[in-house]
């Protein structure tokens, strides 16, 4: 009966290839899945590698045994401030002592600060050797045996390179005393400048392009241009910043026109220049993200507002913007987190290698990524542990920003 139905017979016209086809399907699915897993593994390896560097055993050696500084059997940890100052006076050259006193008089310093000075300037711990977390966990016994044998005076400790002191201390030339306070403040101040410039400019540009701009050649040029700028490598912005903000506008960015007379910043390599450079860098990203947020506001809302006789700007200000603002903020946060991690343009603009004071906008600058770069580039292991610790600080900073962005995004998608 089926024979008279042409479609019935698989009569040799179609090869019976179903099994082969399904086998290919299974194999490729495994390939696709494995590729994704490889990506995830790479991320995991990266994070583990950083954690591996941020914790572990360290062997210290003190140049001056702290016990030898004890006064009448009282260890220096417990000495009152006056006696600590006395120790400093005795052990430092008078020049160095007076310099410290000139910076901040000793009687105005806290006890902790003076104690830190004693440790830093007299006791002077040096890292003799350090180990990664993996080494510390798997070869603990050997490490301990080796330290006793090779560095009998050294003290072995298992430490977390990232800790409260690390975050509170300024940059220092001694690994044990180095911290990221300067770098964190530098990053925050730079980003503040970036946001203050790029946010209004970027949102304004987006409003212009989405709400006002007609479809003519100029506006098309502006649009294309913004898309192209978003793809320009960040280092190019660094070169631009160097040429414009540092060189041409040096009087402005060094603060000279405002009466700031710090001779070290006369070159214009300041927080302000860095912030402005990053503002140029993130501007196209902010514009593109804000445009998207504005586009998501339904057209019917604008029509409703215009139809009751509101002007264009009244419509934008009281209806479009309030609805787009969560999206705009999300996009801005994402752009800003890009700026926080930028390193290359700031090196070109002229980040400083060693500053240990709290920055202001007309001072020389360093930022967290710059600090990480400089520490990573040093060959000694202890600096690389510090780099790992600083990376963790940076990641925590970025993750909290991203979490904020996600919360904002979720709030905004519930609107319509």
């Amino acid at each position: 009966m089926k024979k008279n139905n042409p479609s019935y017979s698989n009569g040799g016209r179609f090869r019976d290839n179903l099994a082969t086809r399904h086998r290919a399907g299974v194999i490729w699915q495994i390939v696709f899945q494995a590729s994704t897993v490889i990506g995830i593994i790479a991320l995991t390896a990266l994070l583990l590698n950083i954690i591996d560097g941020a914790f572990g055993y360290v062997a210290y050696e003190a140049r001056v045994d702290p016990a030898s500084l004890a006064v009448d059997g009282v260890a220096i940890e417990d000495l009152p401030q006056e006696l600590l100052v006395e120790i400093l006076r005795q052990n430092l050259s008078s020049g160095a002592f007076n310099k410290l006193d000139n910076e901040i008089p000793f009687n105005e310093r806290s006890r902790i600060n003076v104690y830190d000075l004693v440790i830093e300037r007299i006791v002077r711990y040096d890292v003799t050797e350090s180990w990664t977390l993996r080494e510390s966990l798997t070869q603990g016994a050997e490490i301990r045996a080796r330290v006793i044998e090779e560095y009998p005076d050294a003290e072995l400790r298992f430490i977390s390179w990232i800790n409260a002191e690390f975050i509170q201390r300024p940059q220092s030339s001694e690994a044990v005393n180095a911290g990221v306070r300067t770098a964190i403040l530098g990053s925050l101040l730079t980003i503040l400048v970036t946001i203050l410039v790029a946010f209004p400019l970027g949102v304004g540009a987006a409003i212009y392009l989405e709400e006002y701009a007609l479809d003519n050649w100029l506006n098309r040029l502006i649009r294309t241009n913004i898309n192209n700028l978003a793809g320009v490598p960040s280092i190019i912005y660094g070169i631009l910043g160097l040429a414009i903000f540092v060189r041409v506008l040096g009087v402005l960015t060094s603060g000279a026109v405002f009466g700031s007379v710090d001779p070290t910043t006369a070159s214009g390599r300041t927080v302000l220049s860095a912030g402005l450079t990053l503002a140029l860098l993130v501007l196209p990203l902010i514009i593109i993200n804000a445009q998207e947020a504005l586009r998501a506001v339904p057209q019917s809302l604008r029509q409703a507002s215009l139809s009751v006789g509101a002007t264009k700007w009244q419509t934008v200000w009281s209806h479009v913007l309030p609805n787009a603002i969560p999206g705009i903020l999300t996009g801005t946060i994402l752009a800003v987190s890009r700026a926080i991690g930028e390193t290359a343009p700031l090196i070109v603009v002229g980040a400083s290698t060693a500053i240990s004071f709290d920055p202001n906008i007309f001072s020389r600058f360093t930022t967290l990524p710059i600090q990480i770069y400089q520490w990573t580039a040093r060959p000694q292991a202890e600096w690389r542990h510090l780099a790992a610790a600083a990376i963790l600080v940076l990641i925590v900073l970025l993750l909290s920003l991203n979490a904020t962005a996600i919360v904002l995004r979720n709030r905004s998608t519930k609107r319509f």
Partner: protein
Amino acid sequence: MPGKKEAAQGTGYPVRKEGLRKRRRVGETIIQSLLFFAGFFSIFTTLGIVYELGKEALLFFRTPEVDPWEFLTGTSWQPHINEFGILPLATSTFITSLIAMTIAIPLGMAAAIYLSEYASHKVRRTLKPILEILAGLPTIVYGYFALMFVTPLLRSLFGNDVVQIYNMASGGLVMGILILPLIASMSEDALNAVPRALREAAYGLGATKLEVVLKVVVPAALSGIAAAIIVGISRAIGETMIVAVSVGAGPNFTFNPFQSAETMTGHIVRISGGDLSYDSIDYNSIFAIGLLLFFITLTLNIVSQRIVRRFREVYE
């Protein structure tokens, strides 16, 4: 507006003497001008880049020591003995980018296909943000990873005498890991944009899932995927910190990925990281390299946008 406050009888609205005639609204005009300035501002950025890079690059090529032909074809870059051949920097940029793309293109595309076509909703919802976080980590973090993990790994695999401490392979590999999620995420968007009707058409004919994916969905999304790949290439060429940290600090004309070298971006960072005095040939040279970099990436970006625009036309 003040002065027109007397209410028309009964309506409660101010009386307008002008009737329906057009009114000048000064506030609106000012705001619109400000907004236009904000929109136009980005043009200044571009002009600034082209003008500054062009001006300094011109000064560079004007100096007697520099010959533009030598610049493009010379195989040695040693400013202190007046040799300015870009090739050692360019080949190293090329090799690291090539290694990166060899990793990122197949893995990124495969991951995109998995996420868009195979993964369950839940898996996609967790994996995609993870990939995006991966793509959003500062590149200096990847630089650290290249130097502290990948280089030691390569050295233990191939031997310390083969793999130098600073080498192009590790920088390229890690750059690939950086670009993988970028390509995956952009390609996934392109695959997702392929209309369901097209998939149904293929399924309706009795195609297997793989056939639907490889023969219908991927070809339909090809322009979007191509754009993702081009953006990836442009990203690799412009990437700086990974190579600055892990590839080396000195130009070296070599094609051996296990040797140290210096990319264009790496060179700019190293030169400007030192104390750079204006009007020195070093200062001018980074603008010349920057200009070259700018034009390469600009071309790639324009090509990618062209492709994306064509892709839009197919479905809208």
